[in-house]
């Protein structure tokens, strides 16, 4: 009889955890303007981590991830405007609603594989948008204007908790028994099934988790922008930015989504200031270059070619 081993916590987790703790500690002293930029960055990092759970870990490319973000945003809008809740309740409701929606969508679309899944996932934001446009409870698609208090520190700590939960969960999932099953699915789903891996359940579990976190992050996003508008909420650009982040950083890695979020955010801010629209051209070019030359992203490639880094970068 063997005693269960204690999980080993690697340097990536320490690094990320330490930085998050440090950020959390100094946040009250960060001036308002940089704090807002930081919150925006963290929202995108949270979205990247949520997409990483399904697309990064299983290789199922989800173009429809913005749907869960929009569901979270609308849940917050509805609960704050109509139900008169505190925005934090709205974020929780957003996470829950997105979880339910992702279970529904995933139960259908995860039956497709590869390109067919990607195409099916592309349809979901279109469907979501058209549903929202005719729902009377959501002001018939007029959008919801919110008037919450300006409280960047609350935004910060909410998104901070969401990211910490995502990083912890990603680590836990990838480093245990589940991680082996998931890597097997990513590598060859039929072979995985023939060895007893319940692929449909495992995929749906990850898809639902990714929906839950995207919903929570979408709620915080609506809270910071003080409003939800249908065409902006279901904008495919969000999906593409999230994909760009995990492709650049490294799909399925622990550090990748954070690195990708920082890079995409910096590029976005810099080139937006030069000329509106150029940021997307540049980010698109970067994604093409990465996909062509180092398809495993920054973290994935470093880990592959520098053996010494393998222990550090999980």
């Amino acid at each position, binding site marked *: 009889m*063997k005693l*269960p*081993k204690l999980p080993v916590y690697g340097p990536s987790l320490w690094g990320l955890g330490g930085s998050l703790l440090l950020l959390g500690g100094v946040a009250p002293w960060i001036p308002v303007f940089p704090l807002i930029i930081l919150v925006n960055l963290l929202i995108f990092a949270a979205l990247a981590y949520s997409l990483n759970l399904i697309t990064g870990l299983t290789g199922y490319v989800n173009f429809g991830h913005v749907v869960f973000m929009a569901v979270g945003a609308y849940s917050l809008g509805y609960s704050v405007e109509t139900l008169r809740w505190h925005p934090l309740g709205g974020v929780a409701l957003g996470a829950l609603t997105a979880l339910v929606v992702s279970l529904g969508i995933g139960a259908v679309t995860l039956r497709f594989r590869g390109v067919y899944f990607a195409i099916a996932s592309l349809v979901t934001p279109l469907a979501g948008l058209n549903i929202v446009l005719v729902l009377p409870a959501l002001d018939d698609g007029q959008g919801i204007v919110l008037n919450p208090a300006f409280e960047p520190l609350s935004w910060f700590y909410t998104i901070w908790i969401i990211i910490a939960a995502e990083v912890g969960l990603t680590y836990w999932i990838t480093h*245990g*028994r589940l*991680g*082996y*099953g998931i*890597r*097997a699915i*990513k*590598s*060859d789903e*039929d*072979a*995985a*099934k*023939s*060895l*007893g*891996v*319940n*692929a*449909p359940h495992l995929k749906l579990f990850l898809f639902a988790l990714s929906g839950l976190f995207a919903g929570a992050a979408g709620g915080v996003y609506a809270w910071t922008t003080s409003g939800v508008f249908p065409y902006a909420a279901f904008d495919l650009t969000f999906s593409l930015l999230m994909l760009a982040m995990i492709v650049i950083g490294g799909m399925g890695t622990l550090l990748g989504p954070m690195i990708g979020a920082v890079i995409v955010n910096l590029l976005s801010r810099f080139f937006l200031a030069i000329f509106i629209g150029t940021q997307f051209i540049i980010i698109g070019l970067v994604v093409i270059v990465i996909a062509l030359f180092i398809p495993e992203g920054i973290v994935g490639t470093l880990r592959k070619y520098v053996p010494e880094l393998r222990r550090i970068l999980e």
Partner: protein
Amino acid sequence: MSPTLEASGIHKYFGGVKAVQGVSLTLGGGRIVGLIGPNGSGKSTLLNVLAGVEKPTKGTVTVDGRRVDRWPAHRMVGLGIAKTHQIPKPFLAMTGRENVAVAMMYGRRREAEPAAALEESLRILALVGLEGRADTPASNLSVQQRKRLEFARALATGASLLLLDEIFAGLSPEELRDAISLFTRVQKELGFGALVVEHVMQAVMTLSDHVVVIEEGRKIAEGSPKEVVENPAVIEAYLGTEATDAAP
């Protein structure tokens, strides 16, 4: 003790193509059953139906009396039935040892600790002579080694009934001899039953206790290896009618 799998009246149609038409067979009790037949005779399809990869159009599959023909493949593994693929499907990005560990954690053993599964994987790899490749990514393995890894993974699920799809195909004569002796050795040690789908007559005849022959989706003969090779219907299926006429 290996489970008893009974297939009766299995039909499998793909649109207008009738791949399997009314085949029945019984597996279990540590017996090695050979399944032979010309190209396109429905061997692999039948195997897929038995493994839960395909659902039969008609007919039933039971394991120890339980109806399982609507079960998905991963649940069949829980009953101790595992299938290998005709073209090996290793997890290329994982090492040999990790490949086997997946089977150990998700197969019938349901080992909960990755560390323990990785440790135990070495023993299984040693059984098939792959211990030297334990920490090599599967993408660096040769075809022969991939076939062995495929076999090792099926064993690692804890299965006692293996459905083996052409594990001896595409090997050189020496490799084939090695593979057959390896199979016999491992089978003696672990005592599993198996359905061996094969083209290579030498392998089937040496290993099988019982041989089933199918042609165009129908069973045309069965019996001991010796009975089967002497059966005129089998000779005709393999060699054509003139051969039967020419035979004394």
